[in-house]
Structure formats: structure tokens, C-alpha cells
């Protein structure tokens, strides 16, 4: 559907940023151990997405959407301000792979990023309708903010 893609605007979402606009967009982003939460209101057809790198804001420095707990909260607030209804919201979560193999188990950034997404969304009573998380591969995703559909490709380390 090339023609369709030509009409709809595209946006590349950088790490530690979030995106929610009233105009329909295709939002691309690439994830390793980062996690992206796509939130969608199927009634109002409003979608938003974030891309965070670390699970928790430790209270020092700026409370930026680089941190999972902040990023999810900020995204939901922004969407509610745009007219989305809290009870309609659905979430899809992606990423959190252990792309870089480490011997130590202390970091597990990917795993902790996933955990904070699941926990925060559960606290906010937002249903998770789709997910592709963990594993050892990176992911490329494209979120359609008008339909809530996410296309995803696993990034092969060696392309077979």
C-alpha cells in the first residue's frame, strides 16, 4: 500500500523521546534493550508512543522520558489532554531484548525495562493487547497512530 504511506506523515522517534499528535502518523523506531510503549484509544483513534532507555528515574537530574516510569506517565497524560479517554486506552509493548550479551546478571536493563512497563500499565489499569518483548534480538517497529496497528521486524544479527 505505497499510496497510503505517501499520504500519511512519518516520524522517526528517537530514544528518550515521546510522540503523540492529533494528526495520523507512522512512527518508526528501533529498539534494543530500550522499550517502546504504544498507547492507543480505539474509539477516538488517537495513538501515542514513547521510547525509554532505563526503568526508573532516580530522583536526581531531570525527570525526562528517558526513564520508563516517567515516559509512560507523561505519554498517558499527553494523550488524555488530546481527548483520549482513560478507559479506552490499550497498550502494546515492544523491545527489552538483551542485545548486548553480558556475563554479569546485575544489569538486565531489558528485563527491568519490560517489568516497569507491565507494572506501570497494570497500576494505570491499561490493558496490554499485544507485545513482543525480551529475547536477544533488536526490533524495528512502525506504529500507525490512526489504526493502532504495529508492524515489527526482528533485526537479525546475521541476515540469513
Amino acid at each position, binding site marked *: 500500500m505505497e499510496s497510503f504511506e505517501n499520504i500519511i506523515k512519518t516520524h522517526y522517534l528517537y530514544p528518550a523521546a515521546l510522540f503523540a499528535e492529533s494528526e495520523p502518523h507512522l512512527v518508526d523506531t528501533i529498539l534494543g534493550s530500550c522499550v517502546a510503549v504504544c498507547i492507543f484509544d480505539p474509539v477516538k483513534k488517537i495513538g501515542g508512543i514513547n521510547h525509554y532507555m532505563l526503568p526508573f528515574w532516580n530522583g536526581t537530574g531531570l525527570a525526562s522520558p528517558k526513564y520508563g516510569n516517567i515516559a509512560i506517565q507523561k505519554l498517558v497524560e499527553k494523550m488524555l489532554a488530546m481527548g483520549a479517554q482513560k478507559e479506552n486506552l490499550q497498550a*502494546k509493548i515492544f523491545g527489552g531484548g538483551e542485545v548486548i550479551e553480558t556475563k554479569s546478571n546485575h544489569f538486565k536493563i531489558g528485563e527491568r525495562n519490560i517489568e516497569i512497563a507491565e507494572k506501570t500499565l497494570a497500576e494505570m489499569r491499561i490493558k496490554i493487547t499485544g507485545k513482543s518483548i525480551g*529475547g536477544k534480538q533488536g526490533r524495528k517497529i512502525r506504529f*500507525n497512530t490512526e489504526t493502532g*496497528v504495529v508492524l515489527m*521486524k526482528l533485526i537479525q544479527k*546475521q541476515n540469513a
Partner: protein
Amino acid sequence: MLTDKQFIEELKQRLTQSGECHEMLRKQGEELQLVNKKLSESEALKSHFISNITNEIVNPFSSILGLSKNIIAAKDTDIVKIKSMAELIHSEAFELDFQLRNIFTAARIEAGEVSPDYIKTDINLVISSIIIAYKYKAEQKQLKINFSFEIDKNLTKDHYFRTDPEKLKLIISNLLSNSIKYSNAASRIEVKAWIDHGLLKVMVKDFGIGIDKKNLEIIFDRFQRLDSSINSLNTGHGLGLSVTKSLLELFNGEIEIASKRGVGSIFTITIPEGDESNTDGYALDGNEFIFGNSEDGVF
């Protein structure tokens, strides 16, 4: 104080007890010896495996390094040569990637870290993509791979089947890779997939060297490779089928083999549909996914 009679009784009892203990010890000793034998066998297999694996990994790496160096040094006009070298690099890297996947999966299975991630999967696309990936290898042996997929009308939502595409891919890749390895040149391989009473069945049939009846039992053991005369010609580490079997067990699936020496082999796997997954996603070829209802192709 004990009377003499009591004393004798007591002694008798102790004697039988010690006899029993002795017998038990002897039995345990025998068991230990058996376990020891098995362990040393497995140890021998393991060290054999390590020397094998060194070849498997070092050789492709050397060729990749050498070939890529040649490409860097090649003249710009030598495009034909460069292309053929790139093809060789790709086939070496492909083989290496496949071997490493098996090794890592085996290690993860042994550590108990593997669980299936079920998602509605387009079986047709998954198998087609594997065959495309192996096309080059098959062409080197002038093999023809025929693939047929019979869609059951009962299958929900077109032909999506709930399973773990990544693990299914490894299972079928192992079967196909073996078939190619043990096929005679210029023959053919048949791959067929169908749904039978809600179970996914995939058959891989070759017309190669086949397997002896007495060997059918051990081919799923770790590090086992049959026919050492073939070893020099064929690559492999003997992990493929044991990984295949473990992954099938994870799926509650089964594998059947029908084979005759000199005629060929038929491997058939049976996999039940996975539990309901809590995602609205669909896997296309095991690498591309759609989350939500969309008629669009993947970007």
C-alpha cells in the same frame, strides 16, 4: 544383662543386617560404576564435540576472513570475482549462524531457560522463508526442493497457527539441513506441511543415504553422529537432532522417522497448537510481525 540365647539372637540379627547392608553397597557400587561409565562416555563425546566444534567455527571464520581480505584487495573492475567471493562468504556465514543458533539453543535448553512464545503464525511463509534461505545450499548440490502446503478449511483466520515461529524455524531448518547434507547430488527433497485434526504436521523427505535400523534410536542423542566415514566429508556437530527433539518436547510435539539404508529418510513432526497467547499479533515469516488487524504488508 542379656542371656546367652538373647545374645545369639541379637548377633544373628546383626549379621543378617550387615549382610543386607553389604548387598546394598554392592548394588550401589554397581550402579555407580554404570553411571561412571556413562559419564566417561559422555565426557569423551563432549571432548570430541569440542574438537568438532572448533573446526565448525574456526574453518568458516578463516574462510570469511580470507575471502573478505581478497575482496578488499580486489580491483574494482573484477565484479564477477567479487560477487562469487561474497556468495561464498554468505554461505559460510549462513552455516556459522545456523550452527551457533543450535549450540546456544542447546545450552539454553540444558540450563532450563527455554519457554515457548506463542503467536499466531503464518506457517506457509515461515517454511517458504526457510526454503529460500537454503536454496543456495541446495543448488550447490543440484538439489530440488519441492514444497507443498495444504490449507485446512478449519484453520482459523486464513492459515495462521499458534506456535513459536523462531523455534519452529530452528526445528525445520535442522531437518532440512540434514536432508540436504545426506542427499545424493542432483536428487530432490520434498517438504510438505498440513493440518491434521488441529495438529500441524511437517514432513521432510529425502532420497539420500538413509539410516540403518539399529541407528534410529541413537540419532537423537547429543553429539552423536553416524557413519564416521561420512564425518570427513560432512560438517556438523551432532547437536541438530537433539535440539530438534528437545524443542519438540517443549511444544508437546513428536517426531517420527521412516528410513531405509540407501533409499532415503522421511522425518515427520507433529505439533499441537500453542496455548492462547495474550497478544493480538501475527507472525508472518518468523521475522516480521503485525500487531493488530491490518491488511497492509510489512514495511
